[in-house]
Structure formats: C-alpha cells, structure tokens
C-alpha cells in the first residue's frame, strides 16, 4: 500500500500519505551534550509500517536520534511525537517502542525464554502466564529458534543471540522497532542472511522499523526510505532510488553509491538544467540538483557505470590513460587518469568489442557520458 506509493516515487502523494499515517515525528529536535551538538534541528516524519534507515558516518548523531525516540535521551529543544502524542520527556519504560541494541544487551542471568518474556511480564495489568508462554513460543518460531527456550544466553552463537534480541523486542508488538547497528557484530555472510530475515520480518509483522547503520549497502538494500545524516543534520531523506538518482549534494552522492566528482564553476542555469565549466575548459550541460546558483563553485557527478569507453576520440570525448583494471566478472573496473580532471573510475560492462576488452594498463582510452547521466551538485 504505502510501500507501493513510495515506489512510484510520487513525491507529493508520498508526503501526504506519510502525513496522514505518521507513527513518529521529530519536530525541530536538537540535542546538546555539553558543548557537543549531537543532533541539530532534525525534522522527520516516520510513516506507519515503513522501514526507515539513518545513514551516516561515525559520530553524525544517528544513535542520538534513535535514543531520543526510545527515550534514553531527552531533546534539548524540539519535540518527539509518537502516535501523535508528545513524548519528549516521557521515560523509556512508558513508551510503546522497543529497541534492539548493538551489543544485544541480553540479560545474562535469564534463559532465552525468560529474556523474551521479560517485556510481557512487566505489563500491568498482568498478562496470564499461559498467553505469555504462547507469545514467547510464537516469537521464537518467528526468528527460527523454536525449542531454545531453556538455553542460557552464553550457549548461543552470535547470530542466535542477535535473533533472541530481535524476538525479545518484537514479542511486545511495539509501534516502533528501533535497531542500532544490529548486524554490525556479525560476520559478512551471517550479516547478509540476517538482512534478508530482517526485511522479511518487517514485511510479515507490519511493524515500523527504524534502523541505524553506517553501511550504505545495508541501508540501500533494506530500507523503504533513507535519512542521510551529516554532523547532526539530515542532509537528504528519500527512497534509495531517489538518493541514488537525485542526490541533493556531493555528500549524498558520495555516501550513497560511488561517483566521480569534477570540480567546476556554474556558468548558466536554465530551469532544472544548467551548465558547468570544468577545469581544463570543457563545458558540460546537465541536470541540476540541490541549491545552486550561477557563479557558484559546484561539481559534476558522474557514476562510474554511466561513463562509456571508446578506442578512438572525437572532440566531445575525454582522453585518458588506463592506470589500473580490476576484473569483476560481469563488469570491469578501470581507474583512468585524465590530464585535467584527475583520476576517474569507470565501471564497464563486459565488452563485445575485441579492442575494449583487451584494454590494459598504459593504454589510451576515450570517455564520454550522456548529459542525462550526470548531475551538477553543490560543492560542500
């Protein structure tokens, strides 16, 4: 439902859908630790049932934002709403949200079953023990750990502990499930498996997930929407597709996927397109994204897979020398040095052309790209 709306990428419609069914909101939220501004003027609406990720480098305030939703931190200014209610100063134990901790934080003196039952046992009025048992059994089934009730925590592997932590949270059917780098401690293979499980779980349960990660691949593959953060601020929020195709800054383009950036000066703007003159004198016409005006320093962003390689040049192509090539199966990655633009990364599909597929270190090659494939972005 909502998900398909988001997929359509219809910005206006999506915004309205989010507004009508937002489960949580951050309104002008800032958080100061002494003099450290961990989060600044954050505004965000989290839609019912969506999978949202906070993505950003270490120390950009992702955890702090999540902890304000959980109630472990109180915003210095601004409001946190959950289900329409102002919970800015409400204690964590009174909030209808649950969190999966990076360290799992499983209770070492309780069995797996009693860890999972913990949240249910705190409820007042009391839930009868029969239905607690049923729910625990069901939660264990959901995370594929049936029969592990009586195990001790330290008898479980890292991946199993991860799933116990997940079960302990979802058994409470929270309005919002918060996950702080839940997969960071797992090895690569297990992480991939758990990512798929997380996604399935979120679809099946219909619970709103908010994930913190600094792994762009994880954010891109799991999320309905990603909120890219930098130094306590939201830089851009959008679907993975939006962020990849329409980054509003060099920072986002760099963080979501990889890209080549060529510095230059904006010399003309025409609606949503414009032109930029790069070092070396070339002028490229392209789409604009983000806040740009004529005369500004800006950069041209071209994704490695958008650059085409040729064996012979025309006046429009750029000449370069192959510095390095890495064979990746279906694709080959070239590092090409260009006299005025520096090093350029190119991801080329398997070539049918004999000459191109035999390109090696030191060979001369010519590059171009279609105007649609590049973006002029503010330089930040």
């Amino acid at each position: 439902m909502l998900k398909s709306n988001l997929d359509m990428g219809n910005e206006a419609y999506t915004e309205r859908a989010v507004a009508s069914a937002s489960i949580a909101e951050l309104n002008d939220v800032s958080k100061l630790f002494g003099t450290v501004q961990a989060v600044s003027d954050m505004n965000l609406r989290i839609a019912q049932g969506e999978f949202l990720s906070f993505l950003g480098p270490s120390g950009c305030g992702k955890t702090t934002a999540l902890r304000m939703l959980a109630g472990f931190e109180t915003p210095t200014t601004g409001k946190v709403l959950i289900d329409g209610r102002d919970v800015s100063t409400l204690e964590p134990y009174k909030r209808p949200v649950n969190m999966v901790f990076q360290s799992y934080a499983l209770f070492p003196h309780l069995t797996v079953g009693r860890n999972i039952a913990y949240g249910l046992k705190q409820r007042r009025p009391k839930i009868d023990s029969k239905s607690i048992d049923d729910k625990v059994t069901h939660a264990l089934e959901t995370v594929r750990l049936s029969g592990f009730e009586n195990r001790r925590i330290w008898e479980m592997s890292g991946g199993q502990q991860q799933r116990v932590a997940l079960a302990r949270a979802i058994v409470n059917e929270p309005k919002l499930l918060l996950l702080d780098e839940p997969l960071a401690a797992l090895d690569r293979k297990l992480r991939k498996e758990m990512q798929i499980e997380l996604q399935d779980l979120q679809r099946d349960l219909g619970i709103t997930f908010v994930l913190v990660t600094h792994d762009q691949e994880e954010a891109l593959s799991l999320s309905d929407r990603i909120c890219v953060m930098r130094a306590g601020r939201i830089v851009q929020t959008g679907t993975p597709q939006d962020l990849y195709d329409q980054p509003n800054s060099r920072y986002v383009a760099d963080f979501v996927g990889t890209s080549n950036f060529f510095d230059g000066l904006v010399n003309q703007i025409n609606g949503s397109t414009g032109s930029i003159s790069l070092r070396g004198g070339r002028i490229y016409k392209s789409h604009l994204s983000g806040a740009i005006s004529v005369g500004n320093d800006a950069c041209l962003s071209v994704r490695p897979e958008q650059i085409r390689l040729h064996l012979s040049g025309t006046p429009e192509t750029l000449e370069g020398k192959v510095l390095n090539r890495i064979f990746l199966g279906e694709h080959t990655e070239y590092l090409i040095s260009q006299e005025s633009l520096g090093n350029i990364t190119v991801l080329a599909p398997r070539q049918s052309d004999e000459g191109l597929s035999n390109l090696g270190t030191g060979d001369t090659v010519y590059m171009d790209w279609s105007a649609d494939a590049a973006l002029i972005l503010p330089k930040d």
Partner: protein
Amino acid sequence: MRLYAFCVYVFLYTPIAIIALFSFSAGRSASQLEGFSVKWYGRAVNNPFVMDALGNSIFVAFVSATLASILGTLMAVGLQGIRGPVRAFFDALIYIAVMIPGIVIGIATLIALVTVFDVVNPWVASFWADAAAAPKLSMGMGSLIAAHTMFTLALVVIIVRARLSSLEAALSEASADLYATPFGTFRQITLPLIAPAILAGFLLSFTFSFDDFIIAFFVAGSETTLPIYIFSSIRRGITPEVNAIGTMVMVASLILLIIAQLILRGGAKPKR
C-alpha cells in the same frame, strides 16, 4: 630473587604454622611440643567463656556484615548515577575509610560515641521521672556493631561498585526499554547481577568483624568478643588452648575469604 621471596614467605607464615602445630600438642606448655593430641580443641570448645565470646563475635559479625552489605549496596547504587566533583569527593572518602588504621578508627569512634553519649544521656534522662532509671546509652554491643558497620561499609561499597561498573549500561536500558520501572530494573536485573559481589562483600565484612581486635578493644565496653578474650587470656599466659582457638579462627576466616574470592572471580568472568 626466588630465594628472597621464599624467605619472606617463611618469615610471614612460620609463626602461624607454629601456632597451628603447637595447638595439637599434648603437653601443657604452649611453646613445647609434647606428643600429638586434639585435647586442647576439646578444652576450648567446652570453655563457657570461649563459647560466650564466640557467640558475641558471631552475632556482631553477622549483624554488622548484614548492615554493611545493605547500606553499602545502596550507597554503591546511589553513587552510580552521580558524576563530577561530588562523586570524586565520595570516592576519596571511601578509600580513606579503608586506608585509615584500625587504631585510629577505634579511638575516633570511642571519642565520638562518648561525646554523643554525654550529650544524649542527660537529655534522655530529663524526660524520665526517676533520672536514675532512665535508659542510658553506653559502650557495648551496639557501639561495636556500629563501628564495624562503618568500617566494613567502605569495603562493600568498593566491591559492589567494581561489579556495577563492569555491568553493561545497556542492560539497564534494555530493561527500561522493555517496560520495567526503575525499581523493577533494580530488582530483576541489577540486583541479581551484583548479588555475587554483595555476598563477597558480606563475607569479607563478616571476616573482618570477626577477626577485629583493635576497634573492638576500644568500643566494646564490657562485652567480650573472641579476639578480646584471646588477648586477655594471653596476658594470663599462652596455653595450647589459645593456640587451638587461634587456629580455629584462622581456618574459619581463611575459608570465608577463599569463598568470597571464588564468588568474585566467578562473577567477574564472562560466562562464554
């Protein structure tokens, strides 16, 4: 270097070994071995004064260790949430309390209590019709328990706090996240996890109080604890009976200390 260490150990433990050895002597002299027997142990156990003193010692040790464990744990938990200069101030006080020699504590407690009694007793008496029949505070079991509690409190705080700070903060947060009230978190998560440290603190406090002579000497008034009894009987001459009592006290203390150590070790070890 090895030899040196060896000499130090010999020097430290020979007197203790000799006491233990001579307690099994069959003769009357405490410094001459005359055959092997456990008769002095029997004599000691059947001595009503010894048993009386032992009863007092156990009672004082148990009550003061219990009080110290409860108060010390509450203090450690309370200090947990405090940072900055206030915390540093309390930390300093606690370490100082442990480092001050027993004799200073003994004298200080004695003077403090006497001063308090001098103020309180006439005041209480003034409410009584017959001043002579008014209850009077004096040195005795109460003051002994109080003094021991004060001293061992610091031990408990240090031990429990070490355990508390090794607990992951995320555990309390997880508990709060799972709808437990602060008290619920304390009861269901914090307390079970620091229980080994509290128990170890209790045993150490018990041992300390049970073995203490110096503080007791000053504040026990007319009460006799086992160390005080041993001291006074030594003045009448050392007998193998004293050796036997000393050996028993030592073995009991050692056992408690070893148990405390094992509990602490087991509690600190991650169970994986």
